[in-house]
């Protein structure tokens, strides 16, 4: 039986990893590592740092696999651990998020982005060009789908700061991608109080 056929059943793969089977551990790593390294690079663009985080995340995954309950997907569980490792790394770097009270009564973020003709490389470069704080909140909200309350709790910032970081990040992405920007007028009203990291 080939390795792929043997471990295609997630339960078998998890059980083998729990028994410290080296082949199963290597299979799990080979299958998910490229995706997770792509994820980490969105938060930490330096490849050496990103690989260190990946190693840390997989060590945590293997050591905590016994706590995984099969209610959710293994992929989602591992993804969450990886994101947490990224945030832990970034917290150690002491990233400062300025609070922006002016944005308290801001309307919902309007956007008229037409993503129909965008290529992955262009989008990736635009997001990489964002300041760290914008990039983290943008990734957590737009890509991972975390709500603002959770982002605020994870990063130790207020919900309003999270919202404003996202607004500025979206505006910047639209500008970088050369897309029509409908948030310009709104942003002008807080232009002097822009919260950068």
């Amino acid at each position: 039986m080939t390795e792929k056929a043997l471990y295609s059943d997630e339960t078998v793969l998890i059980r083998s990893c729990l028994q410290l089977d080296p082949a199963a551990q290597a299979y799990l790593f080979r299958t998910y590592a490229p995706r997770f390294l792509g994820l980490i690079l969105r938060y930490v663009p330096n490849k050496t740092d990103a690989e260190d985080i990946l190693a840390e995340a997989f060590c945590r995954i293997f050591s905590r696999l016994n706590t995984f309950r099969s209610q959710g997907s293994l992929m989602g569980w591992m993804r969450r651990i990886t994101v947490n490792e990224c945030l832990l790394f970034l917290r150690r770097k002491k990233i400062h998020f300025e609070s922006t009270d002016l944005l308290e009564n801001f309307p919902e973020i309007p956007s008229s982005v037409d993503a129909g003709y965008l290529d992955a490389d262009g989008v990736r470069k635009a997001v990489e060009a964002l300041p760290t704080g914008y990039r983290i909140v943008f990734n957590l909200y737009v890509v991972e789908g975390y709500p603002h309350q959770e982002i605020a709790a994870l990063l130790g910032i207020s919900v309003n700061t999270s919202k404003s970081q996202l607004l500025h990040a979206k505006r910047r992405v639209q500008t970088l991608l050369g897309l029509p920007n409908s948030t310009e007028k709104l942003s002008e009203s807080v232009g002097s109080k822009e919260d950068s990291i």
Partner: protein
Amino acid sequence: MENENLNWNKIAALLASRKVVPSTRVWDLIQERLPKHVAQRRFRIRTLLGIAATFSLMVSLTSLWALQNKSPESRFSGYKFAVRSNDAESAAIRSSVAFALKLYAADFPLDEHPSR
């Protein structure tokens, strides 16, 4: 609004689809920190025991050879001398041979001996 969300979702999907193959360094780092599989641990212990036993046996045989060549009288009865004599030197050799054999026994228990 739904259409707008769809567009950001498209951007999110483009970002999430990125895959980057890590260097072999990452897997080496992980392996260093992972607890070892039982078979790997046993293999490592056996290797160490094997090296120790071989070294011990070599020392014993060298001592025996040295003893045999000590005097012309003992040259042909060296083995007998080493095994039966109460001499302190031969006692030391006997104990080191016994130690080497013990190590081999620990390394390859009878039920798991490679010859079986």
